[in-house]
């Protein structure tokens, strides 16, 4: 931890940047959620193709996300479900990065 009595300029020059784990988590969460939401809807707008078997397929690769995000599919409802999954995963990863980073900084500046 930075000693509180250090003047501001000293803090600025000698201090170590801290991450706000909550904010980093929320930011990454929103970003990842939006990527999935927009990515899914983009494929829906763009349209799919008909397979030789006569099946209409939209975004078969993105559909693979359903392997991890149960309930997700390339549809508008799926994009909302995907947003929440993306948000949850991004928040988890961002918070974890922030938390681990701050713990290491604490350890190294102790």
């Amino acid at each position, binding site marked *: 931890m930075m000693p509180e009595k250090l003047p501001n300029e000293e803090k*600025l020059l000698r201090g170590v940047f801290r991450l706000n784990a909550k904010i980093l988590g929320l930011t990454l969460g929103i970003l990842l959620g939006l990527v999935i939401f927009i990515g899914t809807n983009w494929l829906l707008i763009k349209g799919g193709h008909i397979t030789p078997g006569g099946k209409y397929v939209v975004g078969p690769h993105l559909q693979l996300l359903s392997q*991890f995000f149960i309930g997700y599919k390339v549809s508008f409802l799926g994009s909302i479900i995907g947003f929440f999954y993306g948000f949850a995963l991004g928040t988890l990863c961002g918070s*974890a990065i922030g*938390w*681990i980073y701050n713990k290491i900084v604490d350890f*190294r500046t102790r």
Partner: protein
Amino acid sequence: MLMDHGPVVIIGAGPAGLTAAYVLSKAGAQSIVLEKDQVVGGLARTVNYKGYYFDIGGHRFFTKVEAVEKIWKEVLAENLLRRNRLSRIYYNNKFFYYPLRPLNALLGLGVWNSILVFFSYLFSRLFPFKEENNFEQWVSNRFGKRLFKIFFKTYTEKVWGLSCNEISAEWAGQRVKGLSLMTALKAALLRNQSGHKEKKKVIKTLIEEFDYPKFGPGMMWKEMVDMIHRNGSQVLLGREVNGIRWAGSKVEAVEVRQNGKMELLCGVDFISSMPLREALQKFKPETPKEVLAAANDLKYRDFITVALMVRKPMVFPDTWIYIHEPEVKVGRIQNFKNWSPFMVPDPEKTCLGMEYFCFEGDSLWNKQDDELIELAKNELETLGLLNKIDVEEGTVVRMPKAYPIYDSTFQKSLDTVHQFLSRFDNLQLVGRNGMHKYNNQDHSMLTGMLAAENILGANHDLWAVNVEQEYHEEMKIDPTEEAVLDKILPAVFPRMDKIGLATAVGSVCGLLIFFSTLWLAIKGGPASAYFKLLDQYFFGYGVTLKGAFIGLAYGFSWGFLFGWLFAYLRNFLMAYYIYRIKREAEMLTFRDFLDHF
């Protein structure tokens, strides 16, 4: 009430001393001002020679200190004129605007010279002096050696009588030392706000214009003296203080000599604007030896003005010119008619002030007045500014101790003296020489004003008033904004821990791959085939338990590398940003460097 205080004894009727007496008299407190000379105004006096008025150096009425501006307006009222400033550098028979304007400098120096200046600047940026021990190195590192030689070397050497490599770098740094990184950052962050843009515009206007009394600052001092007399205080001329009697923590009296007669003047409070070295030499009993030695170490640069009356209505449009030509001794030429048209008795005539920087007792100082006038005339002709036959007549004014010298030892000596003087609770030092500080007229007046207010019950620290304050004013930030920035900046700008971020990102990446792989290995499904493609980069990887561990290791390694590089680049760019801001602020404070001498 205030009469019970007894008279306040003020030594010196310069800007600081007179302002102190003025403030005291307005509050009903009596004071006695003792002036050695027969004229008031000190270094800011105006000389009247056959109806020609001229200053000892020009004194712009330009301040950001509201209280001082209020006094100027109060005393001078409609006699304060708004004047345009034009001051240029004269070098190689050409005029260069000052502060420098890039296009004008480019045209003046010529294409070839400008190219050399550019490469010299580039060279200094790529290969700067590793250590900045002297003024030459300090300026060269910032502007390039060639620009230093053209625009700083000659004039600085004329002003200080020393080679630029003998002047310490700290001295140049004095101009910018008060500027903290925090201030620079705050100013830079707020610079683009509309209010600050407006403020910047106002400051620019203030620099291009200034106020000036109709007949020079002398008329203000005269008016002030009249007001002081009307309020029952006294300004006594021709009174030299020969001794300062003290005991314990009090100054008790001063010994004053007039026409060979000595008298003792007692007082309750004392304010001194007498040169610090001289003041300490006059203490009775003598000050401790180390204090006296420190006082004797304080040095001054002296000044000669040769005023020439010219039979021409216009010589040049500038208010003053800096002479950078090494062939001549003159350092600056004032055109007093351009300061105020009322400074000359006949509109068909002009009065030029040829200013020479010297040391008391050197060959220039000891020259006869006729010789100095002849030298000034010849130099005007050498410079190609005037034909010497156009000069009608001239007069000489010698001003000792015009500039306190900031040499390598002055700060230590000043600290010793300051420490000794801090024991006195009824003596305050004010003014440029009184404090051995580069106070301009406005800051000198401010010290006088604050000293008077202290006697009236306030508790100001006069040493906190300084010339850097002027620059800080330009960067003045709203206190609420400042409080917020004080809290935020130290949290935003520090370096990022590279190892910390690398480990954090590495861990998260590794774990993501580990659990994804493990999940697929347990559950199976079409995504496995795509995940398997990772083995194109992660040799040995597969969607199996073993592959999950291999993926963990690879994910950690790549994440670690990415995190480390991200933190490194972020720190590098942040450091560069801070460096640029600090440099810009330095340049801003250095902008009117020459104006202060």
